[in-house]
């Protein structure tokens, strides 16, 4: 999957790609918002893990920056606490931590203050010498989104966007809160940075099983011939969470499910499932194809929004003997909130391959279980030889279903009809399963480990590009506009159910039903 985009100047004759981890050049990583949750829970544990597994260069350093005044030593102590607490499926080794901690530094500062950037420059110069980071710097904006533009502008004003080596910037989601703000942010970024140096992170794309979609589609010869409107009846993408807003009510009330999941993660997953094969497997070609696909998605007219999109919000319910709050009863949420905690959209892709095939995407909180998967429903055979044996609805009429499971039971399964043992021709659906865990028992890297290594190596394949972000905002913007001017009769689904009735009706109009994942 990973591609070394920038070869080092002279090949290292001691490298052994069969056994060693991929080569990553020396660099310093500057984390803005270093005392925040993301740094503590994901970034530092991922970097420690990469260090532990010798997957990053010996010449590397991390410079944390945030408003909290701290010394290097205090920062190391705090990060030690976080890493030992949030490290996933991996041991914490005191000796290795000591070596890792020598690479951690801290600069206190406010992103809006000029002095902060000068202090950062001094620190960067120092680690470039002490840790031989070759002048390469990866900036990670893990701050509130409202600081993105200002931070980048100031990096430019202090000439930190260029130096002896490469300079790259990782930007966390959300990238804008609508099409207009995303475009404005892009403009501001491009005044300082080239698009090639901007890495917009979408951690969904870093998941092993999402990357496996590409391997499955383009590494095998038998699926692509079926991967089109002649054989596919519809595609369903589900990202369900059993939890509620978990203390993030304030943020979530402003965001909603469509913005939080469909505009970014799930539209990128749809693009991965439906894109054309790239001619070469590199960042530019893969991203070209994803962007092309997103541009081919039909933009729904405002009058048709109610036909092709459904908003939902969960109400209180008793699930398994536990009383669950409705969204409007959650802390920091207003009692008349119009937020969508559930969103379902029918997309059509107007290209030669997918014309008229509906792509149904749904996501929601407080659903019966946590599951993310993609189901490709194939057409029924042309002649129903065994139709008398497959009465009972649409599912049986179209027996072939390919499910790409992203989480939690990562894998792929194919459903087909098989003859039941005994006399007579009775058939029943059976499932052929590939379980990712059973075939590759080793620990899989977390999405952040994958994406951090990619950014250091200059491989942007799994990062979203400006045109991809723009296209994905374009397809959800009309829905956001209509919903923003609507008054919903919320709540319209009970916690612990698969969403509002209107969502089922949306599929029924096309002759389809939601599958139960």
């Amino acid at each position, binding site marked *: 999957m990973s591609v070394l985009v920038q070869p*080092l100047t002279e090949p290292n004759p001691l490298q052994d790609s069969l056994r060693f981890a991929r080569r990553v050049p020396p660099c310093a990583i500057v984390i803005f918002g270093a005392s925040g949750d993301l740094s503590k829970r994901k970034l530092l544990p991922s970097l420690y893990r990469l260090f532990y597994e010798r997957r990053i260069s010996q010449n590397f350093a991390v410079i944390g920056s945030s408003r909290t005044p701290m010394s290097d030593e205090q920062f190391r102590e705090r990060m030690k606490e976080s890493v030992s607490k949030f490290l996933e499926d991996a041991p914490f080794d005191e000796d290795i931590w000591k070596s890792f901690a020598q690479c951690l530094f801290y600069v206190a500062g406010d992103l809006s203050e000029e002095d902060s950037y000068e202090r950062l420059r001094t620190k960067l110069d120092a680690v470039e010498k002490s840790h031989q980071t070759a002048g390469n710097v990866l900036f990670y904006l893990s701050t509130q989104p409202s600081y993105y533009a200002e931070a980048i502008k100031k990096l430019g004003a202090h000439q930190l966007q260029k130096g002896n080596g490469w300079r790259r910037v990782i930007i966390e989601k959300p990238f804008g809160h609508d099409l207009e703000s995303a475009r404005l942010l892009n403009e501001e970024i491009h005044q300082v940075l080239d698009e090639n140096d901007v890495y917009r992170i979408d951690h969904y794309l870093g998941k092993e099983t999402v990357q496996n979609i590409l391997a499955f589609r383009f590494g095998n010869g038998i699926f692509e011939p079926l991967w089109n409107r002649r054989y596919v009846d519809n595609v369903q993408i589900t990202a369900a969470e059993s939890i509620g807003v978990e203390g993030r009510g304030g943020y979530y009330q402003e965001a909603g499910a469509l913005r939080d999941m469909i505009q970014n993660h799930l539209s990128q997953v749809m693009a991965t499932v439906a894109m054309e094969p790239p001619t070469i497997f590199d960042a530019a070609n893969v991203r070209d194809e994803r962007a092309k696909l997103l541009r081919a998605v039909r933009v729904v007219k405002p009058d048709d929004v109610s036909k092709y999109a459904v908003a939902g919000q969960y109400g209180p319910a008793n699930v398994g003997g536990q009383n669950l709050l409705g969204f409007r009863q959650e802390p920091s949420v207003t009692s008349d909130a119009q937020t969508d905690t559930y969103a379902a959209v029918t997309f059509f892709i107007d290209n030669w391959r997918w014309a008229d095939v509906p792509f149904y995407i749904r996501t929601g909180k407080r659903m019966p279980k946590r599951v993310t998967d993609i189901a490709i429903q194939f057409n029924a055979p042309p002649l129903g030889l065994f139709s008398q044996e497959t009465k009972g609805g649409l599912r049986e009429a179209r027996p072939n279903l390919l499910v790409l499971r992203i989480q939690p039971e990562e894998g792929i399964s194919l459903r087909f009809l098989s003859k039941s043992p005994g006399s007579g021709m009775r058939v029943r659906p059976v499932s052929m399963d590939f379980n990712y865990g059973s075939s590759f028992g080793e620990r899989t890297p977390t999405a952040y480990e994958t994406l951090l290594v990619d950014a250091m190596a200059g491989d942007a394949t799994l990062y979203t590009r400006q045109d991809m972000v723009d296209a994905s905002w374009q397809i959800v913007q009309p829905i956001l506009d209509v919903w923003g001017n609507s008054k919903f009769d919320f709540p319209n689904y009970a916690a612990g159910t698969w969403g509002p009735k209107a969502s089922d009706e949306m599929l029924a109009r096309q002759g389809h039903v939601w599958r139960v994942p």
Partner: protein
Amino acid sequence: MSTTIIFPAQPEQILKGLSKLWTSLGEEEKQQGKPTVLRACAMTLIVATDEADAGFAASQTISELMHEHPARGIVLAVSKEAENDLQARVLAQCWKPFGKAQQICCEQIEITAKPGSWQNAAPTLAGLTAADLPVIFWCRHHGALKKDAIETDKAGLDAIAKLATKLIIDTSGMETAEGMDLLTKWQSEGKLVADLEWTRLTPWREPIAHIFDNPARENTIKAFHTLEIEHIEEKPPMQALYLAGWLSAPYKAKVQFRRAAGFGRGIQRVSFRSDAEAIEFERTSAECVTLWSTNGRERKYSFGEASVTALMTEELAVAGFDQAFTGALERARELAA
């Protein structure tokens, strides 16, 4: 879950035993009304042991390897205690991944051979390999690997080697020249080969290679003209020869071996020098290797004696031609000579 003894150990009988085993696992599913067992197989792994290897728990090791490399495991054990010339039993190795409802099961066949029957095992094995998948032969039959092995043992080894896509041995207990000759011979026959003594070097090799990743570094590997390796054993062990072979292969640096005290077995310290810089990797405790450099760098790496399961796990993941190993072996032969 296992079957009773199958004798004679004919492939058809053994495969029938396997089939019965899966049927009974399926019955269990039927009773529970949901899928409880998942069958997995990515290769055939044949492990041959001899009487000197009696303490080795082959079945247990295979069951541990299955977690990352699901395989049809075949243990071929030579034992004087065997009741018949060749007899077999089949069993399923199952485990439940953490948090999952389904068990994953792999097939295992245990074949016991009387010492004189080892050379007859190959035809049975030929009928038992999983179709269309690689066959890995891990030979722990030390008697058959020796230069002066008796003819029947040699013949048995050659016959099984012919079935294999990849051959794995561990030369740590062998004469260095003997091990290298055998590996070179198999390579010349077009086989993929591996030596667990080489696999043990990955925790040394990877950090050493990383030093030279930095394009800004002034002293490239070309500048290092002297290499010194310290080891516990009286004579340089195979792993020291491999490391020297690998490190000196690109530029033919001058190599010195030295005996030293330290931890465990094998290599204790590696140092290489250029006119401007010296770099040392030293085992500073049983669990740690420390890097020192005259330019002021110091870094610690976790280092433990890898278990045989860990070594095999790494080796089974290497499916193709191992260029680094081949180069190191070639140069190690020159150094040993």
